[in-house]
């Protein structure tokens, strides 16, 4: 967190730079099954973040020697497109992306029943097309949907959201400016049915009480996103089921007409 220029307010009269209140999430839109070739996929728009996720697997592991005898090898790649940021980002994976790939994997793997697919690999590819703060959380939320879309057995969805401290106030879901100039950022991922935490990071400066408040606010944000994840999956699969029934129904009618 760097110091903000003096005189610039990030929250004035309870309104943030993008017009939100302190405890408001940004607008979130989730699409399921966006990609043709992937086994599972999802697209999320979280504020100005635009992120595509593809899941491949369970499939043969390459290179083969990495395969595990008792469970699937779970791999994750978090990557930002060169055009996703204000200044062009070198497409080679940065140290930040390597770390985020690791924590993303560790956030998603506990929910995945990898032991059902020994000697195989499950690959999750997260591509950030446009970033505006909070991409790791948006990526995790979308990746969890893509895993479900791939039909991989999960104990639970994984849902992520951040909270932090901006202008001395605890706020939900920081955007890029708030992340850059704010006092602290706490990204959290949970498995909502049991409430266990699978990702937790923090940078900035917080007292114990502020940290507690931020963590609980982030978990509250997670629960709101969880409802949207379920709704997105229902929209695709319940919608699909109805259209299949319709097709079958039409087929029967045609036969009757013969």
């Amino acid at each position, binding site marked *: 967190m760097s110091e903000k220029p003096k005189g610039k307010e990030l929250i004035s009269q309870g309104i943030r730079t993008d017009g939100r209140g302190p405890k408001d999430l940004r607008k979130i839109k989730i699409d399921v099954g966006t990609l043709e070739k992937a086994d599972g996929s999802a697209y999320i728009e979280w504020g100005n973040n635009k992120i595509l996720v593809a899941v491949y697997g369970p499939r043969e592991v390459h290179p083969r020697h990495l395969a595990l005898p008792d469970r699937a090898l779970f791999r994750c790649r978090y990557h930002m497109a060169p055009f996703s940021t204000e200044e062009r980002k070198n497409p080679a994976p940065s140290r930040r992306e390597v770390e985020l790939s690791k924590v993303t994997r560790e956030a998603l793997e506990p929910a995945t029943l990898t032991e059902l697919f020994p000697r195989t690999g499950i690959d999750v590819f997260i591509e950030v097309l446009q970033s505006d703060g909070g991409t790791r959380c948006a990526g995790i939320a979308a990746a969890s949907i893509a895993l479900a879309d791939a039909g991989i057995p999960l104990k639970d969805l994984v849902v992520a959201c951040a909270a932090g401290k901006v202008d001395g106030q605890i706020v939900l879901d920081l955007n890029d400016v708030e992340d850059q100039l704010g006092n602290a950022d706490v990204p959290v991922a949970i498995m909502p049915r049991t409430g266990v935490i699978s990702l937790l990071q923090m940078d900035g400066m917080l007292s*114990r009480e502020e940290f507690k408040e931020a963590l609980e606010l982030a978990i509250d944000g997670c629960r709101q996103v969880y409802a949207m994840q379920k709704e997105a999956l229902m929209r695709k699969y319940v919608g699909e089921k109805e259209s299949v029934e319709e097709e079958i129904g039409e087929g029967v009618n045609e036969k009757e007409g013969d």
Partner: protein
Amino acid sequence: MAESFEIVPKIRQKRISEHLIQDKRIDGRGLTDFRKIKTEMGLIEKASGSCLVSLGKTKVMTGVKVEMGEPYSDRPEDGVLTVNVELVPLASPSFEPGPPSEEAIELARVVDRGLRESKAVDLGKLCIVPGRRVFVVFVDIYVLDHDGNLFDASALASILALATAKIRDFSLSDDGRIEFKDGTISLPLQNFPVEVTVAKIGEKLIVDPSLEEEGMIDARITIAVGKDDEICAIQKSGPGTLSLEDVYKAVDTAKDKAKEIRENVLGGVEQWLGKGQRIQ
């Protein structure tokens, strides 16, 4: 995946678990005891600052080098701090030569976050000519012997190396040129973060896991605590999960342990703070 966790035999795991149930550790420690911490500063004369930390049998050496360079374009008036970790192959059978592994990058970034977010080094005081020339502080962490808990050992070695680093005294001429003088000055230190790792095995939370304990942990959480008990950085790591109560308990433990290390092991940290005010 590529983590350097040791494979612990099932029979040994059982013994470790049996000890933990009785709130004991297999090496005789209590659940929240650190192993013996030994610190040696200034072993490397060619470095601006250096520190060798022994945490039980884990050994980590940090060297600090200060050079002149360009600032980042978005922080033209700040000096530059970079943290790098080398998991050298002599430290563990699972370390290999080659580009830094995921594990090394995570370790470096967590130490970096602790130093940066606590504002340990006052980077504003390391500017020579705004936008053109600043001091660049290289913190190079060398893991020499890996017996678990590299996070805490590396963070401690790094802050101590920074705290004891000396650079040539200098003055700035009117046209912004730097002139070196005799004598040395310290780096401008304003906070003293200590990182504490709490690991979860079964239902128990333990502090400072050894290598074999790391081989059976569900998840661990590293917490950087500043001199006024503020939390500056957190990283949950490892494949498992933590409950909300685990997190709160870990934060409280980390605060107590960080205080204990600052007072008992280092004899208070005030001796290192507020020095080097002469830069700029």
